[in-house]
């Protein structure tokens, strides 16, 4: 088998159909005006020309998921007695995320350090992550607001992806990055790609140069941000237009905060985990009514600080922002995190 492959564009639906027989395949499809990762079905309108509006993070870390179900079961012999049945669902299906972008795959790498590569791995994240193969499409043009090269990544970055694909004229060049990627690659639809390797490399370099650079990672950015932490004036200025809606966190491939709640109807219920956001006043509100993070500027400061200072400090300098630009593109008030970081560096 060749190290790399080539797939003519007209064969792409056939590949996805073949993969759908063995995997739950999620791919970016056009839904009205937005591009969303959806379960692939034959005849679906794939949209690979621009990054999906929502990253694929929900496929591995669902927006809302049941951690366990419980049921208080009445004893038929003694109506005053009940017993508790509890069921945790750790059965996850083999899944493919097809057509994620390098930034989306990087998002999972940022999750991994917190949810996987730790003493207390998250069993739900781990279960899905290990059963998921990520096939990533290198970007062939930057999108408005992208800044991946500023955070040490790039439009063809392969870290976090199992199989990389690059659009080249009439087809896609494929390069497996992991054993999981090689498994997919065995499909007979692939032609030998060795003739296209150099072309793909050039395409990567071309796009990389096109991505805007609002700032370059400087040595000491985490320290710089920390030193600004108590400078309320700086943060109030930078966050004046933010309305704390939290959209940035829901669109972010790397925002991983969550809430845990219970729901019960009759004798049965479930413990649910849902995405949560540090943009919300209630995120830090205690039952006593004490709230250590009452002000809007403290909340956005936390989001910027977490990605560019606290996480890098904890994880060997890795910035917890993949530069996808979604929070900039879709912010109703056009708050620009790359601008805030650039201002912090200059402050």
């Amino acid at each position, binding site marked *: 088998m060749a190290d790399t492959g080539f797939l003519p564009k007209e064969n792409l639906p056939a590949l996805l159909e073949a993969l759908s027989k063995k995997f739950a395949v999620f791919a970016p499809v056009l839904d009205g005006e937005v591009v969303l990762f959806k379960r692939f079905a034959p005849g679906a309108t794939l949209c690979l020309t621009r990054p999906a509006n929502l990253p694929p993070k929900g496929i591995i870390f669902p927006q809302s998921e049941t*951690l366990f179900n*419980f049921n208080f079961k009445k004893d038929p012999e003694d109506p005053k007695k009940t*017993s508790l049945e*509890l069921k945790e669902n750790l059965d996850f299906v083999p899944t493919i995320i097809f057509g994620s972008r390098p930034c989306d795959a990087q998002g999972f790498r940022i999750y991994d350090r917190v949810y996987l590569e730790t003493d207390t791995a998250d069993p739900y994240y781990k279960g899905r992550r290990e059963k998921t193969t990520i096939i990533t499409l290198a970007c062939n043009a930057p999108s408005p607001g992208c800044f991946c090269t500023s955070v040490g990544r790039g439009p063809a970055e392969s870290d976090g992806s199992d199989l990389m694909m690059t659009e080249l004229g009439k087809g896609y060049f494929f390069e497996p990055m992991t054993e999981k990627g090689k498994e997919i690659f065995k499909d007979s639809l692939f032609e030998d790609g060795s003739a296209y390797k150099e072309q793909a490399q050039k395409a990567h370099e071309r796009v990389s140069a096109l991505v805007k650079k609002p700032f370059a990672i400087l040595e000491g950015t985490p320290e710089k941000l920390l030193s600004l932490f*108590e400078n309320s004036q700086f943060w109030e200025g930078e966050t004046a237009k933010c309305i704390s809606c939290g959209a940035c966190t829901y669109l972010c491939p790397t925002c991983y905060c969550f809430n845990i709640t219970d*729901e019960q109807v009759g004798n049965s219920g479930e413990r649910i985990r849902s995405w949560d956001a540090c943009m919300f006043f209630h995120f830090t509100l205690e*039952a*006593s009514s004490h709230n250590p993070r009452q002000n809007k500027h403290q909340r956005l400061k936390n989001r910027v600080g977490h990605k560019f200072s606290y996480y890098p400090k904890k994880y060997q300098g890795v910035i917890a922002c993949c530069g996808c630009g979604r929070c900039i593109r879709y912010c109703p008030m056009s708050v620009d995190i790359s601008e805030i970081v650039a201002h912090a560096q200059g402050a």
Partner: protein
Amino acid sequence: MNHSMPDGSPYVPKWAEISRIEKLTESEKLFELRLSNGQPLGHKPGQFVEVSVLGIGEAPISISSPPINDNSFELAVRKVGNVTNAMHNLGVGGKLGIRGPFGTNFPIDEAKGKDILFVAGGIGLVPLRSFIKFVLENRKDYGEVTVLFGARNPSEQLFLSELEQWRGRKDISYLETVDRADENWKGNVGVITTLFPKVQVDPAKTICVVVGPPVMYRFVIMETKAKGIPDKQIFLSLERRMKCGLGKCGHCQINNIYVCQDGPVLRYSDIFALEEAL
């Protein structure tokens, strides 16, 4: 109720049965619990657990007892939110879900051979009690022991029979005050800082442990500074909205610190610069 639980997942609680309930004040109750699996909780003074009332939710609660030989542990709980209100409706024999223990503990080893100044405000006594009782049980390991306790009014004093014992002990100095007295109160009146002039400390060999409402810390720290106790010898326990206890959910984060793992007991010298900490 019979409860069986799959083991392993850090999100699935173990079960504990309530073996005793003591009403402490109008709004606080003490729950004595034992894990249904017969195992000790395995905690150290200062740590906390996530308590589940299934169908209502989960809340972080500090453990109020030191490790006890019979494997029981105590939670003293003010009814203030959904989970704690539901706890207050349970009786002896009721079951609670327990995850943990989580977090850092009070400096039981670092304080050995040193003097200890305990400062408790209101229900701050609940977590601090685990350390105070631990020290009293291992009294010879520690130097001079001073306990300062402030409550808003006499009816909000907790653990009355224990306070009575502390008042009578010759091997500790116990000083107490209330913000507002009632007709029966004959002791000190005023906020907790008014007790400091009555206390002599050797700052070099004193470990100070402070637990109370957020507003109290700032004023107590002014007093410890006046006494010359170095910031690195001062320990605080922070309250936060902690959902997972595993350093993931993000709710308790203050800059680099996850209070559920790096705290709740923190050294004042590590957090004094953090705007959101106190």
